[in-house]
């Protein structure tokens, strides 16, 4: 494994993923904010949640890129399109399975079956995260494909 290459491009890909989702949010394409959702695992304070969540998301993305690197190492090659395919698969898993499991994991998230309570008030994302805007799936998909694409294009397997 090329550790230097992983550290550099894992970090860069995560930054781009976060940036693209934030841009989508700013442009009104989606209300999905993974840093905010992750941050509210730890604190109800909105501002603090965004900050903490950003750090957690960065660390998550970095660590998650290890999985991509493992695939590239096992295939003995890394290309932009292989990375993009992996990103698309990850996006599909996040949107279909991850988002539906989230209310069960998140201490502050309500669910479709259990209404808001004093501790669980965060709106659940729902299937394909459509509760966070009709174009959430698209924005999430694009961001993850870009994440994989960067890793595939720039990571150098050894």
């Amino acid at each position, binding site marked *: 494994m090329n550790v230097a290459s992983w550290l550099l491009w894992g970090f860069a890909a995560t930054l781009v993923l976060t940036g693209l989702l934030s841009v989508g*949010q*700013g442009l*009104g*394409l*989606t*209300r*999905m*904010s993974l840093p*905010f*959702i992750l941050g*509210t695992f730890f*604190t*109800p*304070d*909105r*501002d*603090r949640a965004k900050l903490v969540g950003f750090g957690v998301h960065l660390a998550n993305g970095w660590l998650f890129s290890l999985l991509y690197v493992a695939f590239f190492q096992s295939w003995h090659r890394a290309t932009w399109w292989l990375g993009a395919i992996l990103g698309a698969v990850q996006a599909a898993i996040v949107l279909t399975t991850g988002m539906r499991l989230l209310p069960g994991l998140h201490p*502050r998230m*309500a669910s*479709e*079956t259990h*209404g*808001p*309570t*004093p501790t669980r*008030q*965060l*709106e*659940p*994302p729902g299937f394909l995260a459509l*509760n*966070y*805007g*009709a*174009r959430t799936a698209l924005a999430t998909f694009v961001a993850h494909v870009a994440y994989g694409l960067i890793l595939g294009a720039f990571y150098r397997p050894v």
Partner: protein
Amino acid sequence: MEAVGDHAIIGDCRAAALVDREGAIDWLCWPRFDSPSLFGALLDDRAGHWRIAPVGAVRVERGYVGPTNVLRTRFLTPTGRLALYDLMPVASEAGKKSLLLPEHEILRIAACEAGEVEVAMSYAPRPGFGRDVPALRDGPLGVRFELGAGAVVLRCEPRCTLDGGTATTRFRLRAGEDTAFSLTLAHQWPGVLPPIGPNARQALERALRFWGDWSARCRYDGPAREAVLRSALALDLLVYAPSGAVVAAATTSLPEAAGGNRNWDYRYCWLRDASLTARALLGLGFVDEARAFVSWLLQSTRLTRPRLATLYDVHGNAPPRERPIAWLSGHRGARPVRVGNAAVEQLQLDVYGEVVDAASRFAGAGGAFDRTTASMLRGFGEQVCRTWRSPDEGMWEPRSGRRRHTHSTVLCWTALDRLAGLARSGRLTRLPVDRIESCREEIRREVETRAWNGELESYVAEFGGSEVDASLLLLPWYGFARADSERMRATHDRIVSELDAGNGLLFRRREDRDRGEGAFGACGFWRAEMLALGGRLDEAAELFERLCARSNDVGLFAEEADPASGAAIGNFPQAFTHVGLVNAALTLAERLRHGGPAEGPA
């Protein structure tokens, strides 16, 4: 459609809603003051409302709960009494750290206080100024619809029936029972859906505490304290907290004359109000709000410096181009409804004096200027020296061309006077003081010569003119003339004889009366303040009291008032009027303490 003055305001310093005496919210722009309306029945019955009221109410009493912005409307019915609490939940900064709160929320709590009451709720959101009928969906987490990328969710305990974009329900409450309705907007972030029930009560208590603590910071202790505090609370609801900007009013296109077409969008920030607003906030002891406002003023104007626009949006950008909203029938038929404001294209030279005077007050309260701000202030001085002879549209923003306005020219004098003062006191460096002072004196000579009409024995509104306007009452306020001077006393008498609207009210200009417009709310208070500045304290106090009594039942003022009935006219509630009330009170209280006429500006 309810009259303008039948409304009360609730808000959270980001957006505001108007609630009428029938329990209907018929004006709400979300997420910001200048966003398109979600409820717009104030401008067209079909443009959306949210009503909660008992069936067959026979009497309505309402007021804010103490010195807060929580509205309580009491409905008396043949079978019982219902209290409806309306608020936008707010929390202290410390409270926000331990609470996950929605981005935007309106909370309404219906509580039966006696007997038994049947209550009807009708929720008809019509986004886009009434253009859209949303597809409401009922689910386990509430009745929701998508608003762009955002989501609006109504949560309540009674089961709703959905029919063509409207949700309705009926329920009964017995004495001691209550039920809550929560409407949230998730605009940019995943939504937060606060539970109803006991949590709603806690949110109400939290809001009462928040506003109570806020009001306790008011250090005013003079005549009509309740009216002054209500004005301060109303003014704070027109503050956009994220930037510190103050919008002129919460509404657009409430007409200046019944059925008329002088309908403007006031959901922006006018520099014209800057100095008066800064003084009002500082004088009441709301120093943080005043600092935030002046900071906004100095930051937002950087985009256009050294030229100043007449108005900006809450983030200092130009407001959208003025356009009519053709599908709205207007308030009681007054068309067109306009969004955006073409006054942004006008030249108003008074804004330099307003901004520099506000900055000077900021410095007087301990504020310091960074290098960019200092450079900007010097730039304003240069700009004033270059342009003070130019005709402009003036503070009343007529759309009939440019003239040499006395008020604008005096405000140019004010700008130079304050800059020289800042330089002489060492708060502003590298200012060509001699040049600034020489220009200031030249302006004074010009005003004393060309704005004084010897035949009328009065200052006049335009150079060489023969008409007065109420803005001349402000000349002592800025320190240009003493209120007890011969000229100002004569000007005051001339203004009263020509612009008196009865009951202490004043028209801005004679043409307003000719056109059937109302009396301009702020002008009466300017007169009271000028009388106080001139040492005529009994007259000032009597007039001030009479004017305060012209508010609506919850202490709010519109832009104008009908001279005969006192009914509120124009955009509502109007910051300028409330600022006028506060400033008049501050000056009156100060003069009552010290006695005699004032030596300098207010």
